[in-house]
């Protein structure tokens, strides 16, 4: 993957307006040398998956702090499977209680980064896991 520039899509699904964390992660990913697309707030799952396809993202990261992560991630997962994005790296971050983390991993979100996670850990997780 030495020649390939990793491209990360950071997305805010649903109505949640908390974007401090998502923007901090965007900054950290840019600093780490990735290409980064940030969707802006209030995107539908359909718009996010379309953007991931159109942009050719290697990594799709969702940020959800309103507590709606389970229904939103299920919806985005279904659409990503439909659009053939199963081989991309899926991440989710936000206010995610302990008991939901395993559920999200089982849905296919390999990286789950609850509030308080370090941006450095997100960067290394991407570097280690993008095929």
């Amino acid at each position, binding site marked *: 993957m030495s020649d390939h*520039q990793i491209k990360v899509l950071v997305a805010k699904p649903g*109505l949640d307006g908390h974007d401090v964390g998502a923007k901090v992660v965007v900054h950290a990913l840019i600093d780490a040398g990735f*290409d*980064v*697309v940030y969707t802006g707030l209030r995107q539908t799952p359909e718009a996010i998956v379309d953007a991931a396809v159109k942009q050719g993202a290697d990594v799709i990261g969702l940020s959800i702090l309103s507590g709606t992560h389970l229904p939103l991630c299920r919806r985005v997962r279904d659409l990503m499977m439909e659009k053939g994005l199963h081989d991309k790296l899926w991440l989710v971050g936000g206010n995610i*209680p302990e008991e939901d983390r395993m559920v999200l991993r089982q849905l296919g979100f390999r990286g789950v980064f609850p509030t*308080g996670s370090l*941006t450095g850990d997100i960067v290394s997780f991407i570097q280690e896991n993008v095929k």
Partner: protein
Amino acid sequence: MNDRSRPTSKIRPVFNESGIEIKPLYTLDDVIASGGIDRSGPGEAPFTRGIHSLMYRHRPFTMRQYTGFANAADTNERFKYLIANGQTGLNVAFDLATQCGYDSDAPEAAGEVGRVGMAIDTLRDFEIAFDGIDLDAITVSLTINGAAASLIAMFLAMAEKRGYDLSRLRGTAQNDILKEFIGRGTWIYPVEPSVKLVADTIEYCAKVAPKYSPVSVCGYHIRESGASPAEEMGYAFAIAKAYTDRALARGLDIDEFAGRLSFNFNIFGNLFEQVAKFRAGRRRWSKIILDEYGAKRPESGWMRMIAGGGGFGLTIEQPENNIMRGAYYALAAALGGAQTMALCCYDEAYTIPTPKAQRLSLRTMQMLIEEIGLTDTVDPLGGSYYVETLTNQTEQKIIEAMEWVDAQGGIVKAVSDGVIQAKVSDYAYQRQRALETGELRKVGVNCYEDTDDEKPQVDLHGYDEIGARKQIENVRKIRAERSNAAVERALKALRADAEAGRNVMPALVEAVKAYATVGEMNGALVDVYGRFREPTQLWRRAG
């Protein structure tokens, strides 16, 4: 310069977040060098020491915890629980569907109904939410922004229906849309029509409900998004001036509405910096309104405020530590002379608070009033060499922040262009890096962390799926029972007023009274104004 207080080369320099270098010792010389002491008393312009002469000695700060969840009936019960526990004001939290102008059964609302606040669809919900609560004895603050015009209309209609005289009704709506574009994100319409709606509410309330505060300008969320305390205040003033200009352009006199503008500020961070921020802010705002705008009534220049939070200061790690943080933050608010206070609860880094957590926050504030002596004397830190110097220096930093906004072409342009968003977000990233490198220390996060694998034990507020389903049934029932012809007529009139550029408040009040839903009213305005979309941004590695 005073040699006794000059830092020696051996100690490391300290700067507060607003960028002011902090000396190890302050003396009278520092106060004089920074501009001297404002000798006016509390209750006298420029109000450095407080907007009232007796401050808490006359009336302690109002305690107004942010509350709301599930539906109107459950929230009404929680309101009554807090009032029974000594809370003196209400601060209403709405769910995201309501805040973004959608009905509970809209596809966009799926999974959101009643999650982070109370779901409101029609006037019926407001009637239930405030049932049995005396709106003369307990003032209500509505934390609503994008959908504020329709919810202010709903609140006024509910109060009128219950027989309150609107010319005497008190209360507040947050209704600060410009800060929603900077942080918090519950905008609905593009920037221009959004600001127009704020002016509509100011104009309408000045005429119909002159004691009601239609706007509470929030430095709070700008600070949460990354701004420094001085920038928080400077940007809030720039926003408040933009609303003021729009209201003046409607032909209102400054004294007709300026006294009803209020503010919402954050309290996390360095305690002395917050206190200086409030003192400097009061002085600056009064100079803006009384000197620059030429208001005649001294009350027009009051920087009335709720000081609250400070959510960004709380941590998910060692959550019980947040109880102590809340106490220190409350102390800063009381020392700073806040009229109203609200504390984020210790469990809010996880989800919305339990009743027990809310009661703890309430008790924290009550201890300041009852046990710690915070209400005995006005501005107890006034005259401190340190705080007076810092107050003078912070006022300069506030002026600089406002000048920066002017240099961007004003706040409306700075928000529309996204430059202010970029600036605060950049600061948030620097702050996160400082936390990760350990340069900025946070107890339980990057120092004194848990060494064992013990997981924090916090009882969490759960999401009420049944309550959400009930809310959806309720709105469908109301649509079936009301006169849909009357709703259609009211919405048509609303669209016509919006298209003609008239004040939409009278039409909104009529629509509310016909039991039009939040989604229908805001949908009608979207038809005319359009819906805001945040731009997608792409960054590529250079070369």
